[in-house]
């Protein structure tokens, strides 16, 4: 088998990123949209860690940890908004969230 190089990881990360983008752009369920965002963040993380290995220093991994922190904050805030929204409109579909005020 071929040696696994940085490029391999970049391909996987790109695939995950595109999948995430497709999810964000096409799905209606907000929960799944949020999950797709997690997918995108993970793709980015994978790239960062792969580059960290390529350059032989740890800055990429540090960045990845910060992105995990960011993802946690995003999930907490996003799901909070979702629950508050569901209480008021009883829907979790993005295309029904089309009023600025109700």
């Amino acid at each position, binding site marked *: 088998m071929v040696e696994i190089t940085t490029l391999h990881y970049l391909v996987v990360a790109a695939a995950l990123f595109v999948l995430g983008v497709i999810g964000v752009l096409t799905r209606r369920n907000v929960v799944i949209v949020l999950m797709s965002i997690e997918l995108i963040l993970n793709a980015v993380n994978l790239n960062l860690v792969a580059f960290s290995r390529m350059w032989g220093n740890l800055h990429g991994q540090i960045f990845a940890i910060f992105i995990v922190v960011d993802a946690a904050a995003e999930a907490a805030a996003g799901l909070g908004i979702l*629950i508050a929204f*569901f*209480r008021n409109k009883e829907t979790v579909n993005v295309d029904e969230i089309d009023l600025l005020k109700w």
Partner: protein
Amino acid sequence: MSERTDDQTNDASNRALSSADRSYLDLDTSDKTYLDSNELVINMGPQHPATHGVLRVILKLDGERVLGTECVIGYLHRGVEKIAENRTYTMFNPYVDRMDYCAAVSNGLGYCEAVEKLLNVEAPPRAKYIRVILTELQRIASHQLWLGTHALDIGAMTPLFYTFRDREEILKIFEKYCGARLTTHAFRIGGCQYETYAGFEKDVKNFLAFFAPKIDEYETLLTTNRIWLERTRNVGVISAADAIALGVTGPVLRASGVQWDLRKAQPYAAYSEFDFEIPVGTNGDTYDRYLVRMEEMRQSMRIVEQAVNAIPEGPIMGKVPKVIKPPVGEIYHSIEAPKGELGYFIVSDGSTQPYRLRVRPPSFVNLQALDIMVRGLLVADVVAVIGTIDIVLGEVDR
């Protein structure tokens, strides 16, 4: 205190419930400004480990908070009151044991005394003493059963086995006295069927000596247990006014601070001759009900001790005609069963069978307080409160 009739009781409970918030039954859905996402309707029972039989409680929950309850009863309905209309007074006696099967002796006492009152006969003093001893032992046994199951509902497994170990001693005395352990049919109209067996008094005294430290043992497990305190204090609070309005009796009423015990208020059997106290609580919460019942066990032991030391000699059966044919009339007689006021209302048309027999079971009336007690609490508290009311479904459904 004059005898309360059923109508009065119902009136009181209707007032209480109309003042309470019953809007959960027809939930107002027109208000769209705030939709509750978590509302959940749960069927607790009729097959549920903590509803003490076949009680079904429909819970309306917000998350785990109880918005309202509705009790559905009747799964154990056997038509006891209707059966009474087709049996002679003597033949009906064993049926009452099957109502509150955890306190069969008390049921029998209430029925026999009601019929005696109707017949205008009186049991001889020795029979009355035997009745008091057995009934108070039964009260202890009933409270033991309550304590074990109540603690089990709250999650403490061990007290159940301790109380059953000690309840066994009481049941042994019953078995030796009348041959049955649970549905004893111990008393007859006009007195007792059986003379005490040889060594009865010794057995009872042995039991008293055996049981005194056991109550302390229960208390070491629970009374100061931190988790027990947190689970029972300020849980299922019912105020004295609410309790009276709903017709609640027994330890549940006394825990709310009302000193009302039929043994003192309208003494029956030989209770006027004994010295005992009526424990009362202050907060009306689950913990107070626990304390009241624990103290009641101690007071029952006091009564039994006095009775067994002063038991008079003499006949055990009063002058009762061979065929029991009470005069036309009606009677309401109630006693203090372990769970509260147990009343019998008998209408006689002069024949050998009652024209109508109505039972006022304590569990049935006390169960009405469930809704007020659990509203705003959590699911876990519903279980604790059902346990603390101490219901027996055989008595609720009859």
